[in-house]
């Protein structure tokens, strides 16, 4: 079924591209087809993108572009090392997936002239400034963003309807919702504390609504501290929330969450939009919705933690830069974004793209990206992740410790403040 859908998209995109580019490109195509196609190698860590690149190749060829795309996938944990070693050996790809900024990995690629700045070479007008900010440095843009992620609480709409619950607007309402569910024998939250990164993510997504976007802005400027009552209060409330998690949550992982939430055995999960594909694989009939973390103070707006997931960078040593730029140019068009979202079930980083209608949560989250995304953050894609020890690393280990009662919320706040103060300029003062 998925292969048929992919085939249909490839055919549709090819037909659309042919129709759009029609007359003039059509005339060039016969001549171009005589020369061997320029083979452009693309390296990435996302196996779910294989069909996307097939669709892109078909669309470009239908427009008369004589290019062929060779996409190679590497395990996410090995990708960066493989890329670094290959680039230094002069055998890297023409187009490489790059992590968002700020981050030492992409920074190193820029600093050592492995990447080409794309301003003026690729039309980036279809991206929002927020998306581009994750790959801009020194006034230049170093990649074409491919996906945006949004994290928050996903909930089973049928369970909510059964108990007459609605999306909570405040932290107190969230607790009342969890209480109602627990009293009725439903597991309110399925948490995956064995995977420490999910706890760091949970902390950060709660942070943008409570203590809030503006407070994080002050934190970044060094005008607020992790040890301030606002943040410690949040940690205490988060720690108290664990009474609504499943028993022995400290030993569960997200693969188990996919099954549990997918099968309707838990009402809510703290997760990201990328999880929806697996839930629907587990249970195609699952009915679920999304809401951002409700703020403690009703006067504060609920915000969503969003970030650009990565981008396509151009290798400065590529021998087929013209062909690679054609691909990158196409990756910056709404047509590409539509194919990306249809085939992967994730949010394209492009604006003005029609999300697949059979994914209502994707449609909703894509809209929310432009309305409630927080402007400040302290997890991935934040200035606090650009040094060592990063906020990410401190949160991972110590959120586990807090949930297991090995440290207090105050201890965790102090560890964050002390750890980041080692290197973060605004905290050093």
């Amino acid at each position, binding site marked *: 079924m998925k292969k048929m859908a992919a085939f249909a998209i490839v055919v549709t995109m090819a037909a659309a591209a042919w129709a759009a580019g029609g007359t003039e490109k059509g005339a060039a195509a016969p001549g171009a087809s005589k020369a061997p196609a320029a083979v452009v190698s693309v390296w990435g860590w996302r196996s779910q993108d294989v069909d996307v690149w097939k669709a892109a190749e078909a669309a470009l060829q239908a427009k008369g572009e004589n290019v062929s795309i060779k996409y190679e996938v590497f395990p*996410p*944990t090995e990708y*960066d*090392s493989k890329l*670094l070693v290959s*680039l*230094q050996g002069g055998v890297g790809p023409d187009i490489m997936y790059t*992590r968002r900024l*700020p*981050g*030492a*990995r992409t920074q*190193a*690629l820029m*600093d*050592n002239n*492995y990447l080409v700045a794309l301003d003026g070479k690729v039309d980036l007008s279809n991206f929002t400034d927020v998306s581009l900010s994750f790959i801009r440095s020194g006034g230049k843009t170093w990649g074409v963003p491919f996906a945006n992620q949004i994290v928050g609480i996903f909930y089973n709409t049928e369970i909510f309807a059964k108990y007459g619950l609605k999306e909570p607007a405040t932290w107190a309402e969230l607790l009342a919702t969890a209480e109602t569910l627990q009293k009725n024998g439903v597991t309110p939250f399925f948490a995956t*504390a*064995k*995977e*420490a*990164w999910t706890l*760091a993510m949970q902390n950060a997504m709660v942070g943008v609504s409570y203590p809030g976007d503006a407070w994080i802005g002050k934190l970044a400027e060094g005008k607020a501290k992790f040890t301030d009552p606002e943040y410690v209060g949040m940690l205490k409330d988060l720690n108290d929330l664990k009474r609504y998690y*499943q*028993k*022995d*949550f*400290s*030993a*569960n992982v997200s693969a*188990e969450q996919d099954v549990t939430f997918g099968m309707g055995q838990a009402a809510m999960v703290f997760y990201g939009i990328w999880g929806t594909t697996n839930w629907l694989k587990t249970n195609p009939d699952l009915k679920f919705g999304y809401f951002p973390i409700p703020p403690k103070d009703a006067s504060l707006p609920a915000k969503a933690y969003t970030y650009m997931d990565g981008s396509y960078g151009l290798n400065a040593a590529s021998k087929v830069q013209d062909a690679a730029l054609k691909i990158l140019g196409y990756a910056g068009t709404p047509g590409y974004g539509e194919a990306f979202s249809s085939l992967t079930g994730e949010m394209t980083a492009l604006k003005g793209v029609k999300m697949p209608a059979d994914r209502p949560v994707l449609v909703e989250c894509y809209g929310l990206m432009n309305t409630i995304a927080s402007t400040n953050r302290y997890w*991935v894609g934040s200035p606090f*992740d*650009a*040094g*060592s*020890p*990063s906020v*990410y*690393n401190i949160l*991972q*280990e*110590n959120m*586990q*410790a807090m949930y*297991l009662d*090995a440290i207090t919320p105050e201890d965790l706040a102090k560890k964050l403040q002390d750890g980041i103060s*080692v290197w973060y300029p605004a905290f050093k003062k």
Partner: protein
Amino acid sequence: MLKRTMFLMLLPAVALYTLFVAYPFASSLGLSFYDWAGIGPKTFIGLDNYRNVLSGFMSTEFYRAFNHNWVFFFWSLVLSVVPGLFFAFLLAANMKGSGWLKVVFFFPNTLSIVVVGFLWSLLLNPQWGLVNQLFKAVGLGFLAHPWLGDMKLALPTIIFVTAWRGLGFYVLVYLAAMLGIDREETEAARIDGATETQIAFRIILPHLMPIIATTSILKFIWTFNIFDIVYAMEGSQGGPAGTTDVLGTLFYRIAFGGLGSSQTGMGLGATVVTLIFLVVFPVSILYVFVLEKRVERNA
């Protein structure tokens, strides 16, 4: 002429050793004096990496991981040698079905460590894993625990799984050593009225001491290089809350950053590797020494 021939015969082995052991180690040692993210220019920083690891911002994590390696070594040694000897004694007595038992004991050793880690992670799942389900089924529900999510139980659990996988190796090695003992000695002892326990402790065990020493040293070397089973069962963070972090996972996180973290520090990682080497190398020398003694004794 003989010397020249010997030299030529040694050459391939020396070349391979130099290429795959000596050069990478020398390169790693050199790297430990630099600040290097894995790409671009390296900055010479002298002993700063050693200072950071031994007494600076990485020291808490380093000593915690170092301590875990010691705990891992001690308990996995106990859980390998004691049951290994016990089952080897039973098998040496030629009890019924001992052939099948040898296969059963050795089977886990044929599985990849990553597969073992994955399978045990499923078995130990707190909600539907077989281990907790079995405890509950036989009325021992109070023994059901979140094994890999408990700060006190996670490391012992991984040590147990490691010992379970390696047990067959120890059983077979000790069994082979027992079968090599001259039967006349044990039979003479029986005629003189020695009990089976006295024979086991006074005759068989002393004969096995050299092989126990050898396997213990090997266990030390393996344990201080351990990474895969912890990674497979707890990830590179060595969770929960760092309670299963060992030097191998610490090195991985420092050198490659780990998924989601943006920091990589090849120089700092190389420092950890060098320190692991400094611990393992003297023991490796001891291993060679013990091995040579055994060869001399048997000659």
